């Protein structure tokens, strides 16, 4: 296989597929977002910014997303960090692989079924009923922002644990011993050695979770009961129910733009702080 043509041929199917099923469709969204709505919901060629100027009509969805996505990311980080620390530094090598696989597996199993489980748990016959037995009445969990937050943490925890684990696992453990030998109390060792060295992992984890959360639909749809509305829910409504493709395209484009902007600002801050980023395989 020396000839360049053979290699070009190998690339051809994948290249065509990415062009037709990814690049062109994304361009169509971009073009549609400047168009005008046809009576049946389709597209009339035009060049106007009306769709973008109308974005405030869906302000609540953007607001909810931009509040709950960072909040969910932060909560996932706070819960994931000690676990990643345990896995990388405290857990015995014998069980470590098993424990790691047990973190990855839920991430790859149906998020729909896993979210559905929480309808069961948070619904009227779940935790609220248990609370009634011990005398606490009138607690409502399902269809509240709290339920959505729990669902988010549950769904995205594995994605946060993994990059942090990788960065903690990689650094030289002798640094911890050195710090201890030099008389640093554990908390100071953590603050001055462990935490700074794990920042690339934290950055990667937060970025992955944040990006995926921005496009979330299922968790708010199932646990928020139509009361906690994300941009994803607005998009489903615009494309499948009210069939306003041009305006929907503008909403989708705005979502991607906000995502890109926040991520690049974030990356810049992190790069300045730590100098590098962690590349992590989630498989």
């Amino acid at each position: 296989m020396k000839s360049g043509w053979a290699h070009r041929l190998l690339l051809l199917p994948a290249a065509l597929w990415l062009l037709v099923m990814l690049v062109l469709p994304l361009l169509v969204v971009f073009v549609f977002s400047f168009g005008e709505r046809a009576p049946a919901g389709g597209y009339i060629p035009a060049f106007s910014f009306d769709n973008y100027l109308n974005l405030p009509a869906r302000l609540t969805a953007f607001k909810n997303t931009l509040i709950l996505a960072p909040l969910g990311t932060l909560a996932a980080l706070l819960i994931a960090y000690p676990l990643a620390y345990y896995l990388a530094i405290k857990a015995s090598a014998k069980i470590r692989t098993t424990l790691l696989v047990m973190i990855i597996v839920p991430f790859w199993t149906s998020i729909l079924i896993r979210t559905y489980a929480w309808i069961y748990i948070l619904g009227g016959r779940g935790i609220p009923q248990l609370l009634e037995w011990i005398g606490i009445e009138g607690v409502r969990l399902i269809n509240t922002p709290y339920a959505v937050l729990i669902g988010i943490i549950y769904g995205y925890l594995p994605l946060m644990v993994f990059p942090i684990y990788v960065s903690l696992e990689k650094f030289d453990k002798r640094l911890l011993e050195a710090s201890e030998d030099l008389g640093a109390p554990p908390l100071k060792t953590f603050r001055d050695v462990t935490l700074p060295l794990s920042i690339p992992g934290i950055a990667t984890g937060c970025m992955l979770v944040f990006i995926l959360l921005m496009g979330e639909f299922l968790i708010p749809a199932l646990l928020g009961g139509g009361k906690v509305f994300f941009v994803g829910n607005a998009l489903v409504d615009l494309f499948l129910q009210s069939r306003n493709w041009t305006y929907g395209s503008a909403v989708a484009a705005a979502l991607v733009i906000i995502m890109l902007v926040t991520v690049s600002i974030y990356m810049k801050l992190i790069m300045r702080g730590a100098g590098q980023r962690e590349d992590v395989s989630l498989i």
Partner: protein
Amino acid sequence: MGMRIYAIVIYLFLYLPIGIIVLFSFNAGRHASDFHGFSVKWYGKVLSNPFAMDALATSVTVAFVTALLASIFGTMAALGLQQFKGRLRVLFDAAIYIAIMIPGIVIGIATLIALVTAFGYLNPALAATWPEWLGDAPQLKMGRLSLIAAHTMFTMALVIVIVRARIDGMDRTLIEASADLYATPMGTFWQVTLPQIFPAVLAGFLLSFTFSFDDFIIAFFVAGSETTLPIYVFSSIRRGVTPEINAIGTMVLAVSLSLLIAAQIMLRRRDRPTRVESQ
């Protein structure tokens, strides 16, 4: 000690909800609160429900074809890419990165409006140029094929990443040795390269199947009038929580779990030294 307890609590948090679904799928009673003992009657109900079975068949077909296409084209691309350095490589990497990072919902929307628009132009053209002796011109519409195309796009990117990691970690001296011993390029590929990357290809196949089988959001936009299992489950949940959903959920989890564990075993194989068989 404290850390270990913390870890146990988190693992419980991760697995308890799944456990509850499995547990209540075997509950004879209708609700969580009336546990009437062990029964498989909800499984019987699901298996005799034609809508659920149709959805299952659609999901399995789509996932299988997706995984096949993604692992073949993805592996081809990963092999081809190792020879390229310049602009082509950068473009390809950017496309793969975008495919993986763009939210599924945006991929779903983009595919929907692009294909519906394209079909709007193609169908009249097809009808006008279709030879009469072939009968009626086929109508292009959203359905299984569009869903397979969309799933293949994403999972192919995934396979490229997995297989490429394996190629990078591969022992190149073996390929050179094979060439020095006058093996044809095809011979080298079948006897040296493929056996080395095969675990990664298989893992890519299994992960692609799992992704396609579990995907809801892309299918929601792209599947047209077809119902996949996740779409069926979603619309059932909308109508109310029933023990049947627990049974379907348990089955879906069992399928994903076994495929995932198989994929993990395949991927971990790379940690072991490669054994060259002498015959």
